[in-house]
């Protein structure tokens, strides 16, 4: 009787602890915006306060994978105006002046915007498996008690997801004095801001994610402020 109580207590205790040890990497529910990452990097030798004028080309360039065409995904242009507007607004907020006639008056910096989308496929395979043991067992007064874990079959699980990246590239034209020979001159990037995440289908969510991430790229780059 005493041993039965001990066993019962042991099993209850182990079940209790097991509930709390479901995995090495517990997690809560994850939303699309949870997976967005904003990364910015700048050239530490650049004094941004020497810049004054800027221009943002009015087209977002779509980058494609030329090696493996199957990975490419058509990118919607539904958000182009929103992205261009946000970048322009943030540049103005930091004190830059938009150059209305860049063909004649070269701006100090050009902020190019490009985007890419890639389809990713992951395949998970597991094999039939049996633990091969029964545990715990206990010999009572008149019976054997045992527990047999279930048998798991094998299988394959395929998941596909599409990632998108927006790249903002601030190029220094000032150091070339306004005259650039494309075949000769190297135009240096002084700031790069990227936004990366899963591409979702909800328009309202996408709009708010673009708002947050583009603004955040500038927010975390206070050195761009020339006011």
């Amino acid at each position, binding site marked *: 009787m*005493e041993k039965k109580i*001990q066993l019962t207590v042991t099993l209850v*205790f182990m079940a209790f602890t097991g509930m709390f*040890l479901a995995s090495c990497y517990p997690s809560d529910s994850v939303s699309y915006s949870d997976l967005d990452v904003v990364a910015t990097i*700048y050239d530490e030798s650049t004094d941004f306060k020497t810049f004054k004028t800027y221009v943002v080309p009015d087209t977002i360039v779509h980058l494609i994978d030329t090696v493996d065409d199957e990975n490419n995904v058509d990118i919607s242009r539904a958000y182009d105006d929103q992205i261009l507007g946000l970048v322009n607004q943030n540049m103005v907020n930091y004190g830059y002046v938009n150059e209305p006639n860049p063909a004649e008056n070269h701006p100090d910096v050009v902020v190019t915007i490009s985007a890419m989308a890639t389809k990713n496929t992951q395949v998970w395979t597991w094999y039939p498996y049996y633990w091969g043991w029964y545990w715990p067992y206990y010999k009572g007064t008149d019976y054997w008690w045992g527990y047999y874990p279930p048998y798991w079959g094998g299988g394959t699980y395929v998941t596909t997801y599409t990632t998108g990246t927006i790249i903002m590239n601030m190029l220094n034209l000032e150091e070339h004095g306004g005259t650039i020979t494309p075949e000769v001159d190297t135009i240096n990037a002084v700031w790069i801001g990227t936004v990366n995440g899963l591409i979702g289908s909800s328009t309202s969510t996408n709009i708010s994610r673009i708002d947050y991430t583009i603004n*955040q790229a500038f927010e*975390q780059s206070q050195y761009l402020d020339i006011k």
Partner: protein
Amino acid sequence: MKKILIIALFGLFSSTLFGQAESMWALTYNMSFPMGATKDYISKASFRGIALDGRWFVDNNVTLGGSLGWNVFYEKEDKATISKENLTLNGTQWKYINAVPMYFNAAYYLNEGSYVRPYFAANIGTIYTARRTEMGLYALTDKEWKFAVAPEIGVTIQTYNSINVMFNLRYNYGLETQYIDPLSYLGVNVGILWTY
């Protein structure tokens, strides 16, 4: 005060408990409270932990043995910003520490012959530490073995029907290694105990 009285009565009227035992085994549920650099990384307490202790009596008051445990720390930080040199990242972070302490243990027990035996112990060994930071679709993982020490105080209690209980406080400290800061946390551990 009432609790103290009950414990004192246990001690006074107790018969032998672990006096004749050669060894004891304890399975404990662990709650862990991060401290120091560990708290800087993950501030939330861990309620996912388990440990198995085996101890052999070398006399009525002293045991030598070992311990194997597992503690999982986890914290989600919404839209955190981190910078290193000229690079800045912003995103929701999922931070994990899986700590597997493996110790040699020496313990000294008070109240020989009592149902309630407080003890103090020293642990020395290693903590296998896996630290993982997930951000967006990316993850950074470091896995290292840390030299570790863990002072401990606790109590063993015999209750009805020989269901024995162990309760202890164990401060775990793993030294700094190449990629992971010192690991520091206080374990509050409670579990059941068998003697043989």
